[in-house]
């Protein structure tokens, strides 16, 4: 369980909490409470951290992490492209790992730390990967871009953590940062405009890969 004590609850979070009907105190662990009364309304309370801010929400059990981010927290940088884990536009980083926010329930994120594209950087204060995407023109329409960037950041960490991929030649040697490794690992992020080559250039640049 992540502790909540280090975290300042921002004004915005308080507003969201109150808008979400019930303000909860702290990030209590344990079983998630069912809302009492109307058994047709299946909702649960959940608290998780998004880009450093804690959010206490009461949500429809069916709400995905993606819809919680977009529709409830108004963090629309995370995109919906298929809603079935087939395109990668909704990629966010949860507890240090990238995942498809469309294929996990918000109420399963209790205590987790979620980083979205908004948490990586802002215009004027860009994450190096965001800056590299601009420099190398790693996007056209910009829709798959937040997912590509979140994935890119995580891919470099996965390679650094020696997690193998389909193209890793030797499972028992450390994984190397190569174009093929990056391409394979980024294959869960579809770009229909076809910025793939430029995305690889951006990741290579940030990862310090030799050309």
């Amino acid at each position, binding site marked *: 369980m992540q502790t909540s004590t280090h975290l300042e609850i921002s004004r915005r979070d308080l507003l969201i909490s109150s808008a979400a009907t019930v303000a909860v105190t702290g990030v209590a662990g344990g079983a998630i409470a*069912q809302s009492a009364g109307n058994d047709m309304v299946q909702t649960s309370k959940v608290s998780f951290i998004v880009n450093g801010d804690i959010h206490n929400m009461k949500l429809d059990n069916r709400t995905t992490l993606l819809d919680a981010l977009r529709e409830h927290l108004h963090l629309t940088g995370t995109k919906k492209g298929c809603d079935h884990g087939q395109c990668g536009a909704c990629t966010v980083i949860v507890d240090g790992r990238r995942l498809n926010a469309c294929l996990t329930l918000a109420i399963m994120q209790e205590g987790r730390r979620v980083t979205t594209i908004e948490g990586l950087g802002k215009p004027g204060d860009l994450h190096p990967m965001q800056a590299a995407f601009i420099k190398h023109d790693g996007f056209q329409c910009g829709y798959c871009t937040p997912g590509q960037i979140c994935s890119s950041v995580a891919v470099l960490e996965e390679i650094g*953590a020696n997690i193998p991929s389909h193209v890793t030649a030797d499972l028992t040697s450390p994984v190397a940062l190569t174009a093929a490794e990056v391409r394979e690992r980024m294959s*869960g992020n579809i770009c229909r405009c076809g910025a793939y080559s430029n995305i690889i250039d951006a990741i290579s640049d940030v990862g310090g890969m030799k050309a």
Partner: protein
Amino acid sequence: MRPFTFERASSIEAAAKSAASNSQAKFIAGGTNLLDLMKLEIETPTHLIDVNGLGLDKIDATPDGGLRIGALVRNTDLAAHQAVRRDYGLLSRALVAGASGQLRNVATTAGNLLQRTRCPYFYDTNMPCNKRQLGSGCSAIDGFSRQHAIVGVSDSCIATHPSDMAIAMQALDATVETVKPDGSSRTIPIADFYRLPGDTPHIESALERGEFITGVLLPPPTGGKHIYRKVRDRASYAFALVSVGVVIHPDGTGRVAVGGVAHKPWRIGEADAKMQEGARAVVGTLLANARPTEQNRFKVDLVERTLGAVISEARG
């Protein structure tokens, strides 16, 4: 998605009990396949039991020198585990051949075993499908069947099992460890875990209602060369048309399991026995009763070609 109630299970026993008390309950772990199907209302549980907090995410050595893989170990962690990479390379290879990095970070060992078919008619709730709605008919047999099964099929269903990991588990003689709602546990050899479609294609495994997978046991490492070769339409992020998983020893003996051809990971002991005779002999036995459609007849040839290349590579 149909509305559902939700609980976070506090223990394995409680999870199994809760599932047994509600025939419409489902366990949720990674959820990458279940939520996909729930959104389409192909899966319609009224109650979800979140089993992520049960500490089943460990990989431990077993006293006999094998491995016990917790049911909740994520695909990424299993593929990256040093002992798996060293001793069960086939498993690591099969895992990283599947899905995408994002999905592997979430998908679990048990969930991967229980993946459901990708048949397009199963996925379209407006189309007849015996697996989804028993007795409604199979639209695939005379429809789009290029990716479908060629062996072990029935007139009711020609769906395939889509898992890559399960092919490795099959070749590695894994055992599935479960707990039943009454608290008793049992182990099911992977060879007995999956079922052929027959006239009950909606029943896919030996699991009973409420029975909960706690882990997968791997026997001690056998050595040999471990190769997993997946043939697919895209270079990545696509389901197998055919996949071949082998363990081959220096004397040419070994085992082979094939994916993309049947309702379950396809392996036959008599075929394994012919490994020294080469791919044609193995496939002759393995696919002896193949019943392909016009669209997927190529898989028969493709299995033999792929196995031949894999055997050469092992000898290489």
